[in-house]
C-alpha cells in the first residue's frame, strides 16, 4: 500500500494525464457517433478475440483428457480389427527316430519390437511359454545370429540382441576352426569384434565367421559375418578381428528360435564337472 502511494505520488503527472485522457475519451465515445461506433466495433473485436483465445486455452487444458478419451476409443476400435489377433499355431513337429535323435528345435517367430540405437539393445518376439520357448536359447535368421532369449512370458519373449554390449557369443573361423568370443563394442550396428583368436594362424579379410557349437545356445556353423579388419590385441597374443555382420539388424521381421533339446542335460553335466 505504501509502495502504491509512493508510486502514485512519483508518477502523479502521468496518472493525472491518463485520468484526464480517460475523461476526454469517455466524452469522445459518449457524444461522437462516429467514434462511438468505432469504439464499439473495436471493443467487440477485441472481446471476441479474447474470448476465442480463452476458449483455445481451455481446449488446450482439456487436451490430456481428450487424448485419453480418443486413445481409449482407438484401442476399442483396434481391438475389433483382425490384425490384433495373432496366430497361436505352433509350427514344429516332433519326429521320433531311434537312429537320429533330434537335437535342435526351431520355432518361427515374428519380431514385434526391435531396438538398434542403444547400448543394450533388445528384441521382443511373439512366441512365449505357450509355444515352448525357453530362456537361454538362440534367435537366428538365415543371415546370422540375432541374439539370445532371456525372459519368457506366456505369449512373448524378450531377446538380448547381438547388438548388446553385455552379450558374448562363442564363434569360430570357418576355415581354420579356431574359436574365440564375439562381442559388440556399442559403436557400429554392422560390426562386432571377435577376440581370443591366437596370432599364429593366418587370417584373410573376408573369411567367414560362424558359431562354434561349443555353447548350448547355438548349433555349430550358423553364419555370423565376415572378417573385415584384423588387429593385434593390446597384449599382442591374440587377434582382435572386426567382423562385418551379414544381417542388417534394422530390418529383421522374422526369425527362428533355436533350442537345444539336450541343453538341460549338458548344463547339468557342466555343473557337476565344476566341482571336479
Amino acid at each position, binding site marked *: 500500500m505504501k509502495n502504491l502511494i509512493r508510486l502514485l505520488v512519483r508518477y*502523479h*503527472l*502521468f496518472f*493525472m*494525464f491518463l485520468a*484526464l*485522457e480517460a*475523461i*476526454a*475519451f*469517455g*466524452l*469522445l*465515445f*459518449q*457524444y*461522437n457517433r*462516429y*467514434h462511438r461506433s*468505432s469504439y464499439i466495433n473495436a471493443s467487440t473485436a477485441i472481446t471476441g478475440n479474447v474470448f476465442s483465445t480463452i476458449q483455445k486455452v481451455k481446449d488446450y487444458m482439456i487436451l490430456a483428457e481428450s487424448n485419453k478419451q480418443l486413445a481409449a476409443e482407438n484401442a476399442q476400435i483396434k481391438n475389433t480389427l483382425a490384425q490384433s489377433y495373432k496366430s497361436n499355431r505352433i509350427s514344429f513337429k516332433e519326429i521320433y527316430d531311434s537312429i537320429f535323435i533330434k537335437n535342435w528345435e526351431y520355432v518361427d517367430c515374428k519380431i514385434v519390437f526391435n531396438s538398434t540405437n542403444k547400448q543394450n539393445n533388445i528384441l521382443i518376439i511373439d512366441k512365449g511359454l505357450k509355444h515352448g520357448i525357453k530362456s537361454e536359447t538362440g534367435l537366428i535368421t538365415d543371415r546370422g545370429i540375432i541374439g539370445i532369449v532371456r525372459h519368457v512370458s506366456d505369449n512373448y519373449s524378450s531377446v538380448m540382441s547381438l547388438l548388446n554390449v553385455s552379450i558374448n557369443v562363442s564363434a569360430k573361423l570357418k576355415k581354420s576352426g579356431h574359436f574365440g568370443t564375439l562381442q559388440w563394442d556399442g559403436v557400429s550396428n554392422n560390426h562386432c569384434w571377435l577376440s581370443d583368436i591366437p596370432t599364429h594362424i593366418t587370417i584373410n579379410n573376408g573369411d567367414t565367421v560362424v558359431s562354434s557349437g561349443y555353447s548350448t545356445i547355438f548349433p555349430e556353423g550358423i553364419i555370423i559375418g565376415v572378417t573385415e579388419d584384423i588387429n593385434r590385441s593390446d597384449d599382442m597374443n591374440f587377434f582382435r578381428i572386426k567382423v562385418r555382420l551379414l544381417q542388417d539388424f534394422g530390418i529383421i521381421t522374422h526369425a527362428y528360435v533355436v533350442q537345444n533339446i539336450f541343453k538341460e542335460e549338458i548344463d547339468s553335466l557342466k555343473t557337476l564337472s565344476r566341482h571336479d
Partner: protein
Amino acid sequence: MIKELLGNIVRALFLIIFQVLILNNIGLGGYINPYLYILIILLLPLETPAWLTQIISFGVGITIDIIVETPGMHTSAMIFIGFIRPFLLKYSAPRDGYETDDEPNIKSLGLSWFFKYALILTSAHHLFLFQVESFNFTNIGHTLIRTVLSTIFTLSLILLTQYLRIGNSHKNKF
C-alpha cells in the same frame, strides 16, 4: 502576478473566440485547419506547475469542444500537449536554466528556441487531434499530410503573433 494572470486569461479568451469565430471557418482543401488556440498553453509562464498545465489544457480543450460540438477531440489533444510541455521545457532549458523573468517567447528565449518548442508542441497536438478525429490507422497517410500542412500554417500564425507582440512591447517601451 495578478497582471500576468489577467494577461493569460485575456489572451485565452481572445484566442478561443478568435479560434471558433474565424479560424474554424478556414478549411483549405480539407487539409489545412489552423489551431492557434494552443498558443494559450505555449505561452503559459515557465514556472506554471505541471499539474496546473494539464488542468488548464483540459479546461481549454473542453471549452473548444463544447463550442464546436466535438466533445473529447480537442480535449484529448490538449491534455496530451499539456502533459508533454513540462518535460519539453525541462529538456530544452538553456545550459544555466531559465532566468526568473524568462518567458516562453521569441523575445525572451530567442527565435531558434521558440521555433523548436512551438514546432514540437504544435505538431504533437495536430497529430494527436487528427488521429483522434480520423480514429483509425488505415488512412494514416492522409492524417500525416493534414498534420504537416496544418502544422506549417499554425506555426506561421504563432510566429506572426510573436512578432506582433514584440512590436507592441517595443511601442510600449518607448
